[in-house]
């Protein structure tokens, strides 16, 4: 049976949750509210940290949790929302090893999405793919677009197990939840 996009995302989240170092944070992680919320339904609620809507706070807390040795999975439902966390991604997470002579090498997993445009188009502020722009801004964060269902699990497996000092930002397509 062909793997479905949503099912692979859900399987990946449950794979991450099996590692005691991980926790999941953001808006609509412990509550329903986005398509991504449904991929977290089977995860122990104690591992889900529902945060106020405050992307800079969320990403800074993500960085702090990682500095303390955890592997946070920080969830931003759309690129448009992630833009509000750019300072903590570009000026901080991406620069930690340089600022500390390689002493701080936190591992962070960031999950975001390209807003769906079918069947409803959410208009200008809820769509867009900023992958290429972020690749230009970040040297120590690998940014992976999840094009096909079979891309998803290996990408999260790599994000969790990598030992090259990089963090990982994984980009989903909102439309593919229904289409692939």
């Amino acid at each position, binding site marked *: 049976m062909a793997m479905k996009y949503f099912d692979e995302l859900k399987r990946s989240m449950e794979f991450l949750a099996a590692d005691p170092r991980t*926790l999941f944070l953001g808006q609509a992680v412990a509550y329903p509210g986005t398509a991504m919320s449904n991929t977290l339904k089977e995860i122990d609620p104690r591992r889900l940290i529902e945060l106020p809507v405050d992307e*800079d706070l969320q990403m*800074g*807390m993500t960085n*702090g949790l*990682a500095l303390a040795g955890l592997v946070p999975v920080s969830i931003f439902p759309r690129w448009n929302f992630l833009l509000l966390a750019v*300072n*903590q991604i570009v000026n901080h997470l991406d620069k930690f090893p340089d600022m*500390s002579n390689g*002493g701080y090498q936190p591992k962070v997993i960031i999950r975001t999405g390209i807003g769906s445009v079918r069947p409803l188009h959410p208009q200008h502020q809820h769509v867009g793919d900023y992958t290429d722009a972020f690749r230009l801004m970040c040297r120590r964060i690998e940014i992976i677009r999840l094009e096909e269902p079979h891309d998803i699990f290996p990408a999260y497996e790599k994000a969790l197990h990598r030992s090259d000092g990089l963090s990982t930002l994984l980009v989903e397509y909102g439309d593919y939840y229904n289409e692939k």
Partner: protein
Amino acid sequence: MITQLKAQDLIDFETEIAGFFNAAQIRAPIHLYSGNEEEMIGIFQDIRAEDWVLCSWRSHYQCLLKGVPREQLKAEIMAGRSISLCFPEYRVFSSAIVTGVLPIAVGIALAIQRAGGSERVHCFMGEMTSETGSAHECIKYATNHSLPIRFIVEDNGKSVCTDTRQTWNSPVLTYENSSHPLVHYYKYETKYPHAGAGARVQF
């Protein structure tokens, strides 16, 4: 207290660094403290080695008082890294971006709380930073979730050269007369400019 450093030890360190900078031997910005030595030593009375200390671009005193050896700190400063000094082995993290360390400190405190640890986080900021939305959000979150953290607001009245009170049109700052349980506020006057050591340096 981690070290036995006295106020004069701190003053002597900054004086030495100022001399190197004015002699064009440091090819990067430095941000020096002065006038707050006793206050800083008081703050460090109950900071332990296992605690975390987070700072801004001005952090020489915190590094020394957290136990970073004088010569190791000096080497980092001479190498041009004064602006964001980080020493993982001493649990010191600094950021040269306004508000940068605040949510990071909250995240570290949350990790400690979830692990049931006894460590604490001490997060330093200037008075302009303390007036930002980020400061309010971080202090509110930490307070409401009872996180093991303390925020220290250091008020020298200026953000670079800008008068903080004048820009906000507020003669009294948010934490100036506050008895907030997680905030320690103090005021001081420094003899040094925002960056550098007061002399024009020709590199």
